[in-house]
């Protein structure tokens, strides 16, 4: 399973979002495997700040040269911040998916949901299965 970067300081959803928690705020983006599969990202559509989102809800869109994919909220809560520079710099999703390419921050309403997400080893298995 090749060269994808995985970070062990965060957890993952099966749909390839990552969430990194500080206090009750979770920063969300998509994994290196996801950005690689999408290939060149040309556009992102972000949620509204203040929106209340449910775990599993489609809240953002990431568009590559060939496809538009939903980004799902990995956790429930309120959107408290979005990466406002990202729509002007969509290539950051490819270049730095775990850093500058973050999408939004959620103030968690149910922090227990974080523990239900996949840890890095479990997520690696998901990617390995998808890769076949």
């Amino acid at each position, binding site marked *: 399973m090749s060269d994808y970067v995985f970070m062990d300081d965060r957890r993952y959803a099966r749909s390839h979002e990552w969430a990194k928690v500080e206090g009750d705020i979770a920063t969300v983006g998509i994994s290196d495997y996801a950005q690689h599969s999408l*290939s*060149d990202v*040309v*556009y992102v*559509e972000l949620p509204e700040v203040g929106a209340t989102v449910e775990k599993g809800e489609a809240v953002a869109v990431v568009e590559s*040269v060939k496809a*538009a994919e939903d980004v799902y909220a990995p956790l429930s809560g309120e959107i408290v911040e979005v990466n406002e520079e990202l*729509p002007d710099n969509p290539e950051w999703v490819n270049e730095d998916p775990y850093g500058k390419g973050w999408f939004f921050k959620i103030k968690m309403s149910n922090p227990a949901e974080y523990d239900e997400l996949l840890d890095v080893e479990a997520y690696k298995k998901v990617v390995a299965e998808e890769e076949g």
Partner: protein
Amino acid sequence: MNKTRLYEKHVAMGGRMIEFAGWLLPVQYPTGPIAEHHAVRTAAGLFDIDHMGQFMVHGPDALPFLQRVMTWDIATLEPDDAHYSLMCYDDGTVVDDVFVYRRDGDYMVVVNAANRKKDLRWMVQQAKGFDVQVTDVSDETYMLALQGPKAEEILQRVTDVDLSQVKRFSAVAARVGGILTLIGRTGYTGEDGFELFFSADEAEHMWDLLLETGKEDGLLPCGLAARDSLRFEACFPLYGHEIHAEIDPISARLGYFVRTEKGPFLGRNALLKIRLEGPKQKLVGLEMLDRGVPREGYPVLIGGEERGHVTTGMKSPTLNKFLALAYVPTEYSKIGTEVEVLIHGKPKKAVVVKTPFYVPVYRR
């Protein structure tokens, strides 16, 4: 599923293989489709387009037969010329769009992969009463495209003909690295460049030779995604998208290639009528005013109602704008008309703009 003779090479180079018109082809290489696109605009790109079909049209009636099935006036082709044309059904809708190469007494017709079998059936059927043979030579003929401002310089290093003497839309028989090749100064990118026809047994040899020769010039192997974004910027139609069996070339704004004055041909009466009455819808270029990526099939709204649809749309790598080709009712096809495109359920503002988005270099 068909594999080209370069399949193993594409995989070894990290090409992402997808199905296209019954063929497994690379949609991109590890450099990514945007880098590949820019390589063709600024240096050069090499495309495996062996999925394209080639038919030889041979016999005393080759010209009258082609005049019957083609909308272009094939009689205007000089001995080494190549020209774009459409083939239409009686009702004026499109069988396929093709390139016709005149070669000595014969003609070669290059057709879309998806239409190869259909086109052959159609042409053989229409050949009744003509002393002509239509032969599908696609399996033994390989086709590569070398495109971009550096294409001539690269190809010149490995061929024995003076390419500066080969004008746009003509072809010459030559040796490329010793391989007998028909070099056409044609392409589907809006750049200068060449399409090469040669024996399928030489595919790997030719591919390696050109990649190696162009390396120092920034030549990249390119996949289907770059091929699509390049042709889109130049507003070249793609069969199954801008044109198909339910649309006529006048509506698709390809009327230039419909030479009704040349005499009878298939679809002429229907096309004359459409020309006289004016098409009900037209293909236009749209530029997004609101942000969003317009994509094929998305509705075009006028006054909040669905009145058209996007045929191809994307973020243009060269122009860095969100652009689309779309069908709209003729009365809304004027440049400057504001419409909306429904993107992910939300209406987003767009405006009708001039096409092509990117004027091919050889037309400037």
